[in-house]
């Protein structure tokens, strides 16, 4: 392979360094400069991910763009990066969403601008690190480090109850991931002193060890996804987080947990994964059905979308644990799509919140009369949220239902109820907020979206429609890695 630029390192460190520079710009007197530097950093971060996509070899399941340097030699911890067909797209998604979030916060955030922008840029770099890390310790460091900027974002720029939400978010996720650290230490000893994730894939483990490790990983990842019943931090975090925080949280941070399952639990613990698949499927279906119903009962738009996120992530975990290509690829597609759609939904609520300072559905009504362009965009994203064909939301749901049917009729049956629930809670909200006569004088004074908001929503609309109409490039990237993973998981380690 010819020498190439260390694209993965750049994807991680360009945003982080840009974030530090923005942070150095300091007080709000330099807010303009902070915004410009942040945007340049975010765009540069996105540009360096393009070669990952362009030069990606879809024919192999091996790690690509690998960088491997010793980091802490004493414990054999390495700065080991690489991507395959499973992780590559998330780095792109993350870098894309970061650009949008920087633009979305452009003149909405008026206090501590530099710190706000810096938090998002640093978080973006760290999350790229999570997706690229092939060393367990490196993964752990990135995984935990992402908590800090998000904690700050919620705690500083959040709503009135932000402290409760931020602490709940932090403790919930921290407690989960501590067990993951224990699991890594066990694997380190077992493998004779290696933190390489790829080594773990071929490490023989007894059933007891696998089960215990599975539970440790489950706690770490299930909280992040989040899976029922450890999901209650998410609605609170979303409600209190500023718009950008919600968008990144839903679009990227939840994917860290799902990614953990597919990178650790499944390949390292194939036997435990099979043995506990019934349990995982049950939790996933509860997320789809129970949370779908709970979403119907919400009166706060952000809470509603947060519950809808949990329900959609149920499809992801369901897809992983039915062990076929439709399910696995469908789950990955669903993760990407949910990145676009949930970001779009939260940004849309943000657009309304910036004008009305309310998230309550009952404070709205007839917004289409004063914001027709916005209403059209929200219609598209709402339809994507209920999985209408030709939007990205359909692809993953459809594939997972197809995969579930191969597995068992009733699982597919329960999963398909999302067609009804998803449409019910999304469109009912749309009806109450957007349609109807002008509900009150505040709605009457609303101004339609400006050029900046139009740009963000248009970019997301293109992504949602493009992926819905032509998902082939996305699945082609995944094929080799997913097939290899499925083959690997099918072989017992006992």
């Amino acid at each position: 392979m010819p020498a190439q630029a260390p694209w993965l390192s750049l994807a991680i460190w360009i945003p982080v360094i840009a974030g530090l520079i923005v942070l150095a710009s300091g007080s709000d007197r330099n807010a303009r400069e902070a915004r410009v530097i942040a945007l340049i950093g975010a765009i540069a971060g996105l540009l360096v991910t393009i070669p990952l996509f362009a030069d990606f070899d879809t024919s192999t399941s091996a790690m690509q763009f690998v960088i491997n340097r010793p980091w802490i030699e004493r414990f054999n911890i390495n700065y080991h990066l690489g991507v395959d067909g499973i992780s590559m797209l998330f780095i792109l998604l993350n870098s894309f969403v970061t650009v949008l979030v920087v633009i979305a916060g452009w003149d909405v955030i008026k206090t501590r601008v530099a710190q706000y922008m810096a938090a998002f840029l640093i978080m973006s770099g760290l999350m790229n690190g999570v997706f690229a890390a092939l060393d367990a310790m490196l993964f752990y460091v990135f995984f935990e480090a992402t908590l800090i900027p998000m904690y700050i974002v919620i705690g500083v720029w959040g709503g009135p109850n932000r402290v409760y939400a931020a602490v709940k978010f932090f403790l919930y996720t921290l407690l989960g991931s501590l067990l993951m650290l224990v699991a890594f230490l066990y694997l380190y000893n077992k493998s004779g002193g290696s933190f390489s994730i790829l080594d773990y894939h071929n490490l023989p483990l007894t059933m007891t060890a696998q089960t215990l490790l599975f539970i440790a990983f489950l706690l770490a990842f299930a909280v992040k996804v989040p899976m029922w019943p450890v999901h209650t931090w998410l609605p609170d975090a979303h409600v209190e987080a500023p718009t950008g925080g919600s968008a990144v949280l839903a679009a990227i941070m939840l994917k860290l947990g799902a990614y953990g399952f597919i990178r650790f639990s499944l390949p390292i613990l194939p036997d435990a994964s099979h043995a506990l698949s019934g349990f995982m499927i049950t939790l996933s279906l509860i997320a789809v059905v129970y949370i779908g119903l709970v979403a119907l009962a919400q009166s706060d738009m952000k809470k509603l979308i947060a519950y809808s996120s949990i329900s959609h992530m149920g499809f992801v975990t369901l897809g992983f644990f039915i062990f076929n290509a439709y399910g696995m690829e469908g789950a990955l597609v669903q993760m990407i799509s949910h990145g676009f759609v949930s970001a779009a939904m939260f940004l849309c609520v943000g657009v309304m919140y910036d004008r009305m300072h309310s998230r309550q559905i009952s404070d709205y009504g007839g917004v289409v009369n004063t914001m027709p362009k916005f209403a059209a965009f929200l219609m598209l994203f709402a339809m994507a949220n209920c999985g209408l064909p030709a939007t990205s939301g359909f692809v993953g749901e459809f594939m997972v239902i197809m995969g579930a049917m191969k597995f068992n009729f009733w699982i597919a049956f329960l999963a398909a109820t999302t067609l009804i629930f998803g449409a019910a809670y999304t469109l009912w909200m749309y009806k109450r907020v957007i349609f109807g006569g002008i509900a009150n004088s505040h709605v009457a004074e609303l101004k339609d979206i400006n050029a900046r908001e139009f740009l963000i929503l248009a970019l997301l609309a293109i992504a949602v429609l493009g992926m819905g109409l032509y998902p082939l490039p996305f699945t082609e990237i995944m094929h080799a890695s997913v097939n290899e993973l499925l083959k690997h998981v099918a072989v017992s380690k006992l």
Partner: protein
Amino acid sequence: MKALYLIVPLAPLLGAIVAGFFGRRIGRAGAHWVTILGVAISLIASCMVMSEVLDGVTFNGPVYTWLTSGGARLEVGFMIDRLSALMMIVVTFVSLMVHIYTIGYMAEDPGYQRFFSYISLFTFSMLMLVMSNNFLQLFFGWEAVGLVSYLLIGFWYTRPTAIYANLKAFLVNRVGDFGFVLGIALILANFGTLDYLEVFRHAPEMATQTMELFPGTPYLVITVICIGLFIGAMGKSAQFPLHVWLPDSMEGPTPISALIHAATMVTAGIFMVSRMSPLFELSQAALSFILVIGAITAFFMALIALVQYDIKRVVAYSTLSQLGYMTMALGASAYSAAMFHLMTHAFFKAVLFLGAGSVIMAMHHEQDMRKMGGLRKYLPVTYLVVLIGALANAGFPPFAGFFSKDTIIEALQASQTPGAGIAYVAAVLGVFVGALYSFRLVFFAFHGKERFDTHHGNEAAQGHDSHDGHEDHGHHDHGHGGTPHESPLVVTVPLVLLAIPSVCAGWLIGTVVYGNYFGDAIFIAESHEWIAEMTHEYPGVLGMMGHGLTSLPFWMAVAGLATAWFLYILRPELPAVIRARLGGLVRVLENKYGFDDFNQWFFARGAVKLGTGLWRFGDVTIIDGIMVNGTAKLVGWFAGVVRWLQSGFIYQYAFAMIIGVSVLLFVWVFDVTSLFSNWVR
């Protein structure tokens, strides 16, 4: 892959995009010209496709690969054969007429460009649905027409009834789609492909395969697939009990009631089952199910039409009933008859709806027939076309509906599929009711005393619930006083153009049904060949009419017409008396058998209540209250207890040390440890 095939759907799509995104720039005229041009091109291309298909040129192939996964290749592709070619002509023709009509109907609506964009988008979606060569694209089209229907029912988005109706329509359709998706998933799981021909080819091998939905009770896989697909059809084609959305969809502007909720979209289910005939023919149980559902819909929905006063709702219930006829035909394996009725119905029901629209325009958006009467003087053209539509709908020869309906009834009579007997009775009784409601409409609105108020000053005060307050739409004629007057040419010309096939289209029966027009596109099992049997006895168009005069359905229709004439012309005071006498029955019909109330109470409110309950109890109380915050409180409490150990007072520490030292001393002096160790040993 020919460019011609691509032109058919893409021309309307292009029109929709231009009218939708650049509506303000191109103006109202620009919007209607660009969309009409798109649909006209599509119609011409469809005709060219049809002539090629008749010469034996068919096509089945991909346009592009949507995605690949699990060894299956999911594609977007076209299947052009006699079935799809017929649908393409029907869709583009009715769509073109409706586009032209809309120029008049929506003339003063502020959402003019948006409306044209939507109906062109609909035409595109419907064409993708009928041209598909695989289940995936079928579902694409299926959902896309549902979306446009949603947007159009809620077109006047400030009206509460409209936005209630469009949400209801979407959700009820989603219940159907739920079954549809499961059917598709079962096909993919069992056949490994979603391509029509591949599935059909392997279907016979699957015919005896079973699956256990419940332990110990095997079901034929094909039956489960077919019932799943048919549940989708029940949603889209508004079959009992998923019919509830169609009457409410009348909240949309009348042109779309004609195009979407009568002529094309609602027939998608009929088309789909016909297309899937190689699957449905393998499942006797599914066919019986279809027969019964169709029979219930055909008869009971027709009854509701009898008590409606809203002119559009009468036509809407009539549509439900006619869809029931088509469904029954499917159940009796008379796919060609179902498709033929689909075609004739598309014409005459479009006429009825657009005619009703013309009346509504003339009446300044009054839809209540009680405020009409004697209109034939003022609206001669509209009267004539509505009369033709009613005659066709009631099934009088030589109008189009006669041929298609009579064939269906005969096929039901011939069919041996369980359920056909009930269906036959429902169909014959339905003819009487059909004639009765059709002519009730004609006589009530166009004959008799003029009941309308010629001074339209207090239009709103006359108030028919939910139909006033139309200030934001449509055609208001200023300066014409109060007398109704005939609609402009853009309205009447499409009406006449649709009325012509409403008369003549039936004469094609010799070709379409008895001439085996569909050929290989429809598969009929050997034991179900009733239509083929009837072909031997087919006496030609004139013969069929002659034979019809002596048959039971014809006399049922005559009886219906006579009853309508008696009740609404001869003794117009009688209906009120009957209504009072049969109060209970009328109330049942007026409440539409209580389905709306039940659904609203049980499903809509029940789901929200259940969701609220789960949230308050599960999430807020148990998980957050006890587990999460409970843990936090427990930790807090424990910390509070342990905190006493670090009080910060030296004397407390000193006291504790003294106690500790004395305990240690005691242990050492009395050698307690050895006691313990002996004991342990």
